């Protein structure tokens, strides 16, 4: 068959048109919601287990609310917030999206989220733990629901512990190692490990630098005063947290390439058996169970003046421009009901934020015997701690923490200078204008 130049160009143009349109933001995807007034758009990232949980909950919601649909848009985490920001800036955001607590404040503080107070009754917040409920507040109003949390405990390599003669690890929260005891464990491991191996890796890389704050909270310190503006880290607690953690590096208790700006993740160091222990969230349990060939267990993070932990995990929020605020609020309500939250958290190895589920316990679908460690660890999060992390200035504070802790850990910067630097950086970050 003869194809003329004109026919060829025409066919090529027709074939390329969908790609060009997609590149311009148009899409012919079947997943696009129809123009249905009862359709909510919901954008999230997630592991396979998490997405399966969301799909299951959506199916239940649609069944319970005949005529309503929820269009799930699952995107990679790396693209999630550049997409969301672009959509918010263009005035065309999804109705619902998922957001980490440390990023929540930025959206709530800039008027991008739906105030849920008119759509939920006054007792709605009582279903959540105080720490979880505090993490979705802005100007004393709820702008989201705390869907789940995830906090860090310690995963350890049992063979490495046995080789070092460490035969027992804490099995209850009140037995958790103190900082001094933890230091002894680290030193014991160091003595028995080759120079290329290390006792521990902490998961403070990248935006995970907020997890360093657990050490500050364990020392009973704060980084923001209750007004969430004035820096409060210049304290004995602040200095002890910096001092203790920066000491890991010169003593070779952690790998030198595990500082806060490292591109090597702590979990990978533990997976490759470069370290004997790692600080990790429960979300790693399914993958670790599937891929690791060595025997491993979990125990609690160390404590000092008190036990503490990072308030990881994610909230679900509705956008201020949603055309269906009542339906969006109903969906958020449904997602956080007992059965739905239990199913989601157990399937994805995440921790619930409901009081009743925290009190009654939850069993992960994978390695259920580890559930009490992570639930116990999560119970140490205080509302005052999570409230600070939900500050609208947290994005800027994260940068300050990264720069200063990097200098302290591998740049030899003194503790006093580091604390002063963090304090000055927080003051600049919370200042109203440049």
């Amino acid at each position, binding site marked *: 068959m003869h194809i003329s130049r004109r026919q060829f160009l025409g066919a090529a143009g027709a074939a390329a048109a969908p790609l060009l349109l997609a590149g311009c933001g148009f899409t012919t995807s079947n997943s696009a919601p129809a123009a249905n007034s009862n359709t909510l758009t919901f954008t999230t990232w997630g592991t396979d287990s998490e997405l399966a949980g969301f799909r299951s909950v959506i199916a239940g919601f649609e069944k319970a609310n005949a005529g309503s649909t929820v269009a799930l848009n699952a995107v990679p985490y790396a693209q999630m917030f550049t997409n969301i920001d672009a959509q918010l800036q263009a005035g065309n955001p999804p109705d619902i999206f998922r957001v980490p607590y440390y990023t929540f404040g930025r959206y709530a503080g800039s008027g991008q989220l739906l105030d849920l107070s008119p759509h939920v009754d006054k007792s709605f917040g009582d279903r959540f733990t105080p720490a979880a409920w505090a993490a979705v507040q802005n100007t004393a109003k709820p702008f989201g629901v705390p869907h789940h949390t995830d906090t860090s405990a310690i995963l350890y390599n049992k063979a490495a512990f046995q080789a070092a003669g460490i035969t027992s690890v804490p099995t209850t929260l009140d037995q958790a190692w103190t900082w001094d005891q933890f230091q002894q464990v680290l030193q014991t491991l160091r003595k028995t490990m080759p120079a290329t191996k290390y006792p521990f890796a902490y998961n403070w890389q990248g935006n995970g630098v907020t997890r360093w704050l657990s050490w500050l909270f364990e020392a009973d310190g704060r980084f923001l005063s209750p007004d969430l503006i004035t820096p409060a880290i210049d304290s004995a607690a602040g200095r002890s947290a910096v001092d203790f953690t920066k000491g890991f590096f010169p003593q070779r208790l952690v790998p030198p*390439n595990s500082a806060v700006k490292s591109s090597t993740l702590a979990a990978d160091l533990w997976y490759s058996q470069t370290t004997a222990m790692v600080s990790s969230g429960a979300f790693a349990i399914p993958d670790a169970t599937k891929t690791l060939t060595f025997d491993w267990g979990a125990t609690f993070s160390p404590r000092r003046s008190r036990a503490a932990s990072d308030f990881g995990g994610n909230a679900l929020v509705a956008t201020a421009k949603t055309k269906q605020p009542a339906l969006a609020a109903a969906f958020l309500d449904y997602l956080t009901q007992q059965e739905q939250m239990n199913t989601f958290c157990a399937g994805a190895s995440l921790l619930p934020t409901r009081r009743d589920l925290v009190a009654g316990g939850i069993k992960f679908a994978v390695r259920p015997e580890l559930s009490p460690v992570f639930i116990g660890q999560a119970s140490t999060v205080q509302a005052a701690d999570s409230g600070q992390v939900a500050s609208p200035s947290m*994005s800027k504070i994260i940068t300050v923490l990264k720069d200063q802790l990097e200098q302290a850990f591998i740049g030899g910067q003194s503790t006093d200078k580091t604390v002063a630097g963090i304090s000055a950086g927080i003051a600049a970050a919370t200042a109203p204008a440049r």
Partner: protein
Amino acid sequence: MTTRREIGGVSADVSLAAWSDAAGPPPARPPADPRRKRAGFAGESATAYAFLAPNMLLLLVFVLLPLGWALVVSLQQTNGFGAGTFVGLANYGHLFGDPLFWRSTLNTVLFTIIVTPLSMALGLGVAVLLNSVLPARGLFRSILITPMAISGVATALLGLLLFDENNGVLDKLLMAVGLPAVSWQSGTTAAFASVVLVTLWWRVGFNMLIYLAGMQSIGPELYEAARLDGAGAWQRIRYVTVPLVGPSSFFLLILNVIYSFQVFDIIFVMTGGGPQNATSVLVTYAYDQGFVTRDQGYAAAIGMVLLVLMLIFTAVQWRVSRNRDLVE
């Protein structure tokens, strides 16, 4: 019989037979109608503009408008939401007192100064080799060009496998031969070296390709003449090849400098700007400010500084380059 006549102001010998009286003088060409000429010119211009319009429109929409908008954003304090607050030149003023900006600028310039000449010199060297009668040169050319087909992120991930200081191939090799391991990820100088090495691996093939194309347009008789004049191999490269690939060098210099100033993906993936900001460059710093700190006005100001630096460099290079248009 011929006679000399003036034709069109040019004296020429023409056959008289060609000018028979019967035929008469050749018909004069009627003078062009100036109105028609103008109409034709306008028509041609309209057609040209019509052909140019799609490109101009794309340039306007995707280059000039964002550029203008970035300038506007750089004069604001904004996190991307709402109208932002106009702060004049405050973002630019803030740059002067920001040590991380200066560190990133210094790193960018250092990276450019190291990578540009090295990638060009290595590219030229390899091109000279592969332009000779080297066995299997087609295969070698293909192998060297392969990195061009790999994305920067994938290249950086490969770099991570090589330079990982716990389990990387390079340190294992060094230790296997009794040498000490290098702190590719936690040592500031070593980390900088690692991104330079990966960038060179990525870029030398491209430089080689352009030089090879340039060299293949040089006639072999020039090398033959140089050889007869007693020029050795190095002198032939120095005095024949290098001057005659001037346009390629000019093109590569501009591109390499622009690529180096814009380096992002390799550094973002391999080092994230660390350790201790040793590999932070202007684009990674702008990214951090725009998408981590969410100070988009400040990030835009960094972007404008980067643009101005590149424009200045290109203008200077354009002015001083003597052999950019040199052809054989």
